[in-house]
């Protein structure tokens, strides 16, 4: 058995171990590699910055707990930026598992830091099944789709929701999603109701969302942990995403090395067996 065959037969658990070490090391010995701002993230920052103070913004928590590492930093950065501009925030979730409770925990924590009051400065609508019907319904009346907020308080008792009852009363939508709902926010709500929006998407979704950037349907895009890190840096609140970027860079180098090694082994193995000559 030559070296290439031995490499091809390596126990995959060694690769898992290498990945684990590559992720762990930067948290023990931080390097603080620089994070550069891309035009897509600058677009998000500019769109929020240019909103008039006290604008009403809908912030979506359309993600499962499994993607928290990418999406929660986006939500936190968005809340920092929006609360610092005194925007009124209406949060909503089209995802049953995680979304509404994450919205409750994260929004309340950040609101307390800025001295914001529930019901007056922000409201958590929670979750309602069938997101396409929900998105269409919110265009007619929010109260018909959400008679009560996430805690069961009737919307009529919340001062903010007495002024906000459809997309006409919402100045901007900040989507944070890990699934197809982002696509429908754009193709239904932006296209049919004309509400301007930006999107924070997981890295897996980001390539698809670039198409909406090109067409101008999205004002900006945060792609994965990298996008979240750029946004954290722009608003001056370096947090979990920025701290995670060292590990991201190191493990990418490891994966590039493994891909090159794997291909090299494949071609060398073919060559030694005389295949392809």
């Amino acid at each position: 058995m030559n070296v290439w065959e031995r490499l091809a037969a390596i126990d995959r658990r060694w690769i898992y171990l290498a990945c684990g070490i590559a992720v762990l090391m930067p948290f023990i010995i931080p390097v603080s590699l620089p994070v550069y701002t891309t035009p897509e993230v600058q677009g998000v920052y500019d769109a929020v910055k240019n909103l008039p103070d006290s604008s009403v913004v809908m912030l979506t928590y359309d993600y499962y707990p499994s993607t928290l590492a990418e999406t929660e930093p986006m939500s936190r950065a968005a809340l920092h930026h929006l609360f610092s501009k005194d925007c009124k925030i209406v949060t909503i979730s089209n995802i049953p598992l995680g979304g509404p409770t994450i919205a409750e925990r994260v929004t309340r924590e950040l609101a307390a830091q800025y001295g914001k009051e529930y019901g007056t400065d922000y409201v958590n609508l929670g979750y309602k099944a069938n997101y396409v019907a929900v998105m269409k319904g919110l265009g007619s009346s929010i109260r018909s789709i959400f008679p009560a907020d996430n805690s069961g308080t009737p919307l009529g008792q919340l001062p903010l929701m007495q002024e906000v009852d459809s997309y006409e009363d919402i100045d901007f939508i900040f989507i944070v999603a890990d699934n197809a709902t982002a696509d429908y926010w754009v193709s239904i709500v932006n296209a049919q109701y004309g509400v301007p929006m930006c999107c924070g998407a997981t890295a897996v979704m980001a390539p698809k969302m670039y198409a909406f950037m090109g067409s101008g349907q999205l004002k900006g895009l945060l792609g994965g942990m990298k996008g979240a890190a750029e946004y954290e840096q722009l608003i001056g609140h370096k947090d979990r995403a920025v701290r995670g970027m060292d590990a991201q860079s190191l493990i990418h180098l490891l994966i590039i090395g493994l891909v090159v090694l794997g291909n090299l082994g494949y071609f060398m193995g073919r060559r030694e067996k005389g295949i392809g000559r």
Partner: protein
Amino acid sequence: MTPFSPIELWLMAFVTLAIFSFLYKDNPVYRLVESIFAGLSAGYYFGLVWDTVLMQQVVDPIKTDSSNLYLIIPALLGILLFSRLTQKWSYLSRVPLAFVIGSTSGIFITSRLQGLVLPQIRTTFMPQNVPGGSTDPWMIVVLSTIVVVGVIATLVYFYFSHEHKGVIGWTARLGIWFIMISFGAHFGYTVMGRVSLLIGRVQFLVEDWIGSFTG
């Protein structure tokens, strides 16, 4: 500073490590945690839908205002969907399914056309933005040409009513190149996404869980 209590932190750390133990090999602790996750998710989802749909949108409105009695009709249609569970009455489920298919088609056809197909076609034939904000007309022409050629070549690859020979064959082969480059970009982003999930868990273990020992 973490918003979780020590008990929550230890429970989260235990569950995370139990799931990671599968990377070494399958084991009873992993299967226990996996089963708890499946059961919790199903129970939570049932409770959430019960409260937010059945109670808030059917029962409560009828209780508070008798003019909302019409809500019984969609509720009955929803119940009819369960008739699929019996062979004898399964035909009844076609009635609510007809509503679902009809309304979904109506919403999706218009939204896909208006929000996706038309804007993307328009953008394809518009001058493209050059990365870095360059206004060099040659760069704009080159980039816009690549986009138009890429879209046409990819569409030709998926045109199966003519044998892929001659001009159509060459164009389809060019289309494969564009598709492969697109797959490469998707793969790169997917790696970044999956790695981020691992980073998130390791970050929790190091910063929140182990970090709580030192205060």
